[in-house]
């Protein structure tokens, strides 16, 4: 790994450790309490109106699959990994550019594009690893607590989580590298994440709005119900492609503009 990639990881290490701990704790707590929450889950299941359950992609809280869907893969899990992806990505270019540190990073004998690519690579690897944590932990914990979901389905849903994170990573990188503004990158990508999450929920409850879900990255991640149906490579590729386009735009735009004005 190049000195710049290693430097990026070193500068991000506190944030990386924090997010890893948070994501791991969340996944472990939710997954391992499946058994003891059964009663409560039944209550929740009865209490939540059908529309709300559709909105939150909850089918039935009582089965292992439904429980995982409602907890780790439904709302908080994707929220956590997408937040981690956006916040870490904003540290690649906009943050050092705003605090001035980017000048001493850019004295590296690298072309602009190589510089941007290496910053992106470092954070891509970090985010991929963070987004893979829930999958690894669910795989390890699920059999012991009576969640009987096939490992292949857990892996495919978890791969979707990674692809989702990378999609927003690419978009955040594109906006951040093109503008050099932390606020813009956080605002635009954050709003996009929240907006498309809501859009997917709305598309399920509004008559004639079903097509809207195709505009939401969250649909490509969970709309295919991977915990029941397994792999949907085309959907995952679509997420990866969206991220790749964002990243490529960012690299090209970064190569063309003034830095640190």
């Amino acid at each position, binding site marked *: 790994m190049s000195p710049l990639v290693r430097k990026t990881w070193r500068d991000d290490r506190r944030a990386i450790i924090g997010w890893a701990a948070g994501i791991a704790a969340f996944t472990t707590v939710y997954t391992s309490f499946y058994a003891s929450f059964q009663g409560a889950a039944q209550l929740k299941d009865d209490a939540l109106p059908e529309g709300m359950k559709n909105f939150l992609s909850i089918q039935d809280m009582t089965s292992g699959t439904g429980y995982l869907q409602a907890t780790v893969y439904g709302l908080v899990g994707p929220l956590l990994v997408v937040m981690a992806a956006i916040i870490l990505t904003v540290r690649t270019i906009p943050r050092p550019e705003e605090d001035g540190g980017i000048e001493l990073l850019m004295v590296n004998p690298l072309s602009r594009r190589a510089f941007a690519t290496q910053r992106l690579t470092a954070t891509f690897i970090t985010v991929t690893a963070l987004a893979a944590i829930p999958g690894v932990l669910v795989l390890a914990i699920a059999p012991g607590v009576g969640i009987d979901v096939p490992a292949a389905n857990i892996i495919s849903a978890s791969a979707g989580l990674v692809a989702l994170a990378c999609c927003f990573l690419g978009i955040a990188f594109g906006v951040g590298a093109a503008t050099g503004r932390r606020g813009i990158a956080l605002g635009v990508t954050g709003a996009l994440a929240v907006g498309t999450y809501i859009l997917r929920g709305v598309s399920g409850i509004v008559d004639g709005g079903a097509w809207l879900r195709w505009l939401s990255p969250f649909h490509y991640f969970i709309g295919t119900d991977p915990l029941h149906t397994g792999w949907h490579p085309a959907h995952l590729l679509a997420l990866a492609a969206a991220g790749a386009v964002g990243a490529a735009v960012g690299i090209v735009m970064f190569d*063309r503009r003034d830095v640190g*004005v």
Partner: protein
Amino acid sequence: MLWHMTDDIAVRAEDLTKFYGTRRGIEGLDLEVRAGEVMGFLGPNCAGKTTTIRLLLDFLRPTCGHATVLGMDPRRDKATLHRHIGYLPGELAFPGRERAADLLRFFADSRSGVAWQTVTGLAERLELDLSRPIHTLSKGNKQKVGLVQAFMHSPALLILDEPTSGLDPLMQQEFLALVREARAAGQTVFMSSHVLAEVQQTADRVAIVRDGRLAAVERVESLGRRAVRTVEIHFDGPVEVAEFAALPGVTDVTVSGPVLRCTVDGRLDPLIKAAARHEVVDLLSTEPDLEETFLSFYYHSEGAGDVPAGT
């Protein structure tokens, strides 16, 4: 040779211009820095010094005009070029919160082929403690980290933006020694400053910018002769204004009792000879101030009505 230069020019700017929207950074800069020389780049704050430097490093892209650095194009050849450039930013901000040693190791690794002894040697000369985390260092010590980073790979061209800011006088001398050694080793130094004195000690030539335009390029000696000093002489008794007002180069003469104040442009000799006719108790001569040098220079070149505005 490290680079493919067609002549002995290390930096060449041709009509180099940068506007930030409508705000002028630098306009129509034509400048040549010869290989192996130390060139001071002088001007008041916001005159366009940092803009020029950042154009040479490809952090900024010119609105029009062109710069050639070590015979290469700053944008197209950035990767190669930055191997041979040592850069000290004017506003130092360090990425990360690691120890000084770890940060410098990153610079050494990314440039490859930097002996760690060179780094520790520089740190010792500048009395810099490498084991401290960067963010706990004082401004002066941060400046030293920046200097070590710029000098560590013995680059062909050193581009230093306000290099002595934050350094105490002793360290300023050590820094000037580093610059002299760099020149002796054939390296080119392009350093900006708003203090004439620090540039005067080492530079061969100075380029003066003002309001985004190049005002002059001069050999340091000729700039010294132009220098304006403020002189204050205390006599043991009252003196007459008329006795001094007509002396060549002497202006703004005021006398209050035994104290004479005046501004001297150029040689001090006539004033000293005139003062020697009286009993002199004390004599104060203020270092030629760059602002005043500028003022006198601009008055000469553009007329008395044109007072430089600090934009």
